[in-house]
């Protein structure tokens, strides 16, 4: 239960993951062996914790919050310091991650492989299928392919 994982307990993280797969509360309850009401209560707790984590991430990184998608775990924000739009993602595999939306330069970055593995895990958790074309993309482009779909504007 740390900031990195949105303060979610393993049980809550599990419920949150199942919720993202568009399953009903009854289905999740049946799968976990709890009542629908218990899942409903857990949703409220999870929403509160995820929102708190996003708000703290925004405060820590000096971001202006635009929208928060509590179900998908994506926050749209803006960084006045860098004059850039920002996406903050929350997933069970990678925890909270801040993504600055600009060109980037993966060609000269020695963290390319670690970024790629982070994004591959993110795609897998979010149910985004990566094809051969995605494998050829730079991680900066791949990040937009995976997280760009959650942008509102």
């Amino acid at each position, binding site marked *: 239960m740390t900031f990195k994982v949105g303060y979610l307990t393993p049980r809550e993280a599990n419920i949150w993951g199942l919720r993202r797969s568009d399953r009903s509360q009854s289905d999740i309850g049946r799968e976990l062996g709890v009542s629908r009401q218990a899942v409903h209560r857990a949703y409220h707790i999870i929403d509160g914790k995820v929102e708190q984590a996003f708000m703290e991430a925004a405060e820590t990184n000096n971001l202006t919050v635009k929208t928060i998608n509590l179900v998908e775990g994506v926050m749209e924000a803006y960084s006045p310091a860098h004059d850039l739009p920002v996406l903050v993602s929350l997933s069970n595999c990678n925890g909270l991650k801040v*993504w600055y939306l600009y060109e980037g330069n993966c060609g000269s970055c020695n963290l390319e492989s670690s970024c790629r593995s982070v994004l591959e895990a993110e795609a897998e958790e979010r149910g985004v299928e990566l094809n051969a074309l995605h494998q050829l993309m730079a991680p900066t482009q791949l990040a937009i392919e995976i997280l760009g779909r959650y942008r509102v504007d």
Partner: protein
Amino acid sequence: MIRWMVNACPFAPGVAKPGSMAAPFTPRLTMRRRLVNWKSGLLVLSFVSLVLLYSYSYPSLNYSGTPFLFEDGYFIRMSLYTYVSSMLGFFIKKYRRGKRQGSR
């Protein structure tokens, strides 16, 4: 003013990125110092002195008259017990640490 989104990078422009995660090169001298230090020396010295102490006081320790020190794998058994107890202690510590971190 929000610019048109192009790509996404976990590092803001101009931020110094952390270096590569390659394992640091350990010179041979550093390795030797790591193995031969005052702690390991003290350990060996205490072990040798204990063996000598046991050996010299063996007749007074052995009340029953039946040999035990170098018989029936005494040293092997004692080493095994020491190893098992230290491993048990290590895992208990690890479990407690994990539990403490998990409850935060």
